[in-house]
C-alpha cells in the first residue's frame, strides 16, 4: 500500500471539489428517497386518491414512476459531475 501518487504539477482544490460532490449527492439522494420510499410507500395511500391514467398515483410510483426517476437521477448526476470536474480542472 505505498503506490498512492499525487499529482503535484497541477494543484487541484480537492476539498472544494469534494464539498460540491457531497452537496450534489445529498440532493439527489433526497429525490431518490422521496420518489421511492416517499411516493411509493410512505405517502402511497394519500397519492392513491389521485389517478394517473387508469392507475392510482402511489401504486404507479411504486411500480413504474420511481424507476423512471432513478434513471433520470443517474444521468443528471453524470452531467453535473462532469460540470464540477471541468470547473476544478479534474480529468478522470
Amino acid at each position: 500500500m505505498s503506490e498512492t501518487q499525487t499529482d503535484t504539477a497541477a494543484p487541484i482544490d480537492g476539498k472544494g471539489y469534494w464539498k460540491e460532490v457531497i452537496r450534489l449527492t445529498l440532493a439527489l439522494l433526497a429525490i431518490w428517497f422521496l420518489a421511492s420510499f416517499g411516493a411509493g410507500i410512505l405517502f402511497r395511500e394519500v397519492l392513491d386518491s389521485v389517478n394517473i391514467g387508469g392507475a392510482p398515483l402511489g401504486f404507479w410510483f411504486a411500480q413504474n414512476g420511481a424507476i423512471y426517476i432513478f434513471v433520470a437521477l443517474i444521468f443528471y448526476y453524470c452531467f453535473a459531475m462532469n460540470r464540477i470536474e471541468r470547473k476544478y480542472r479534474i480529468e478522470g
Partner: protein
Amino acid sequence: MDWTIFWVASTFAVYIGIAIWARAGSTNDFYVAGHGVHPVVNGMATAADWMSAASFLSMAGLIAVLGYGGSVYLMGWTGGYVLLALLLAPFLREFGKFTVPDFVGDRYYSDTARLVAVICALFVSFTYIAGQMSGVGIAFSRFLGVDFNTGIFIGMGIVFIYAVLGGMKGVTYTQVAQYVVLIFAYTVPAIFISLMLTGNPIPQLGFLSNIKGEDVSMIQKLSDTLTSLGFAEYTTTDKTTFDVFCITAALMFGTAGLPHVIIRFFTVPRARDARLSAGWALVFIALLYTVAPAVGAFSRLNVIETVNETTYVAPGEAYEAEAAALAAEGITPSPDWFARWEATNLVGFEDKNGDGAMQIRGPNAPDGLANEVTINNDIAVLASPEIAQLPDWVVGLMVAGGLAAALSTAAGLLMVISSAISHDLCRRTFFKGMSDKSELRVARLAAAGAVVAAGFMGIYSAQLAFVAQVVAFAFGLAAASLFPVILLGIFWKRMNREGAIASMLTGLIPTFLYIWHFKLGAGKDAGPDEWFLGVSPEGIGFVVMIASILVGVGVSLATRAPPQEIQDLVEDIRVPGRRSPHGGGDADMAPAE
C-alpha cells in the same frame, strides 16, 4: 418444440463463438476485461449480469399474485443502481483494483478484513449461483425433454467454455449477446398482449389505459375482477408499511453491495465511465422492469377471463375435437394454452365440486366455492406469447431468453468466486510473490472448479433447502455486511480496521441467524408477531445494516485512527485522476506479456 431447440442451439453457438474470439491473455483481461469496456456496452452486460432467471421468468408472475406488494422488487432491484452510481461505483473504479475484498483489504490495511470480505462474497455468490444452475436444469428438463441433470451439465459446459477461456472479457461480450436475446424475448410478447388488451402497443402505457372498447381502466377492471372472486384488491398489500419499507431498503442496499454487480464497474476505463455505465445499466434493466408490472397485471386479468368458468378439456390428441364440439354447443372450452402447459405441471386443475367447469376463487369467495385452478408464477411470462397468439418461433424464444438470463448471471457470479480464490486468497493473502502467469492459471482453475461446484449445488438444490431462500440471504447479507464497510471506507476517512471487521461481523452473523431461524429453523411458521419489530426475514438486512454502521462508527472512534497513508488513499479515490494519471492504479498488476 422444434423452434425451442433451434433458438437454444443457435444462441449457445453465438456464446461459444464469442468465447473463442474474446480469450483472456492476462489477469487484467481475466478479472476486469483489461479496463477497456465501453460504458454503454458495460451497461448492457451489467443488465444481463443482474437480471437472473428469477427476474426474467418469475418476477412478473410474482407481481401478478402480490399486486402492490410486488413493488418491493421493482423499486428495490432498480433503486440500488442510484446508490451504486452515486456512492460506490466511480470510487471503487478509481481505486483501480480487481475485486471487492481487494478494496476492503487495502482500505482497512488488514488481511483479516480481506478474509471476512472473501467469506461474505463467496457465501453470497454460491447461494445465488445454485439457483441459476437449477433454473437451467428446469428449463432443459421441462422444455427440451432433456433430463434435469443432463440439462445442468449442458449449461455448465457452456459457461465453462466462455468463463474459463475468456474470464471477464468473455463474460462481458456473451452477456451483451444474452441481454439482446432476453430483452427481445420479453418485450415482443408484452407489446402484443398490451395491444390485444388495451389497444396501446407500449406496455407501460397500456398499464395505465382503459380496456379496449370499454370505459374502465385495466387496473380498475383487474381490481374489480379480483375482489368479485374473493381476492384482495390489486393495489393493496397485507404487509405493514414499515415492513414494505424495510424489504425495499434491504433489496436496494443489497443490490448496491452485491459483488458480482460491483465488479462489472471495474471493467470500464475511468471513474466517469463507471457513473455513466450505471446509468446505462439501469436503462437496460428498466426496459424489463417497467414492462414486468404490465405483463403481470395483463396476464392475471387475461388468465382469469379466459380460464374462469370454462369447461375443462383434458390435454392430448383429442383436445381440438373436444373443444370444437363444446364450442359448437355454445359452451366455452378451456383454452388450448392451458392444455399445453398442463403437460409441464406448471398449471393444474382439480374439479372439487364436480361440475366440469374451472373455478378460480380467492380465499374470501362470495359464492363460497373453492379454488380449483393452480397456476405457477412463471406462466405469466412463459405463456405470454401463446396467450397473445404469436407464432411458434416466438414461443420457442422464451426458453432461450430464460436460459440467457440464468447463464449470464451465473457467469458473473463465477467471476466473483474465481477472483476471490485466485486473487484475494492466493495472490493477496497466502502466496504474495505469485507471478501474473501463475495467477492467471489459478484463476482459470478456480473458475473451472466453481463451475463444477455450482453445477452440483444446482443438482442437489432440491435437497438443499436454503437455495429456495437465496434471495433473502444474498441481499440481506450484501446489504448488512458489505455495503456499510465500502460506503464508510469511501466517505469517512476515520473508519479503521477494527471498525470494519466489527461492522462486517455485526452485519453477517445476526442477519444469517435471523434469516436461518425464520426461513428454515424453528421459527419457520412464525408470523409477524414474533418477528423483530415486525420485520420479515426479507427486510431484516436493512435493520441490521443500520446496526452494522453504528457499530463500525462506534468501534472506529474508540480505537486508533487509520495510518496517514490510508487517509491519503481515501482522499485520492475521491478525486478522479489522482490515484494515477489514467485512473489505472494497478501498475503493480501489469499484464504478463
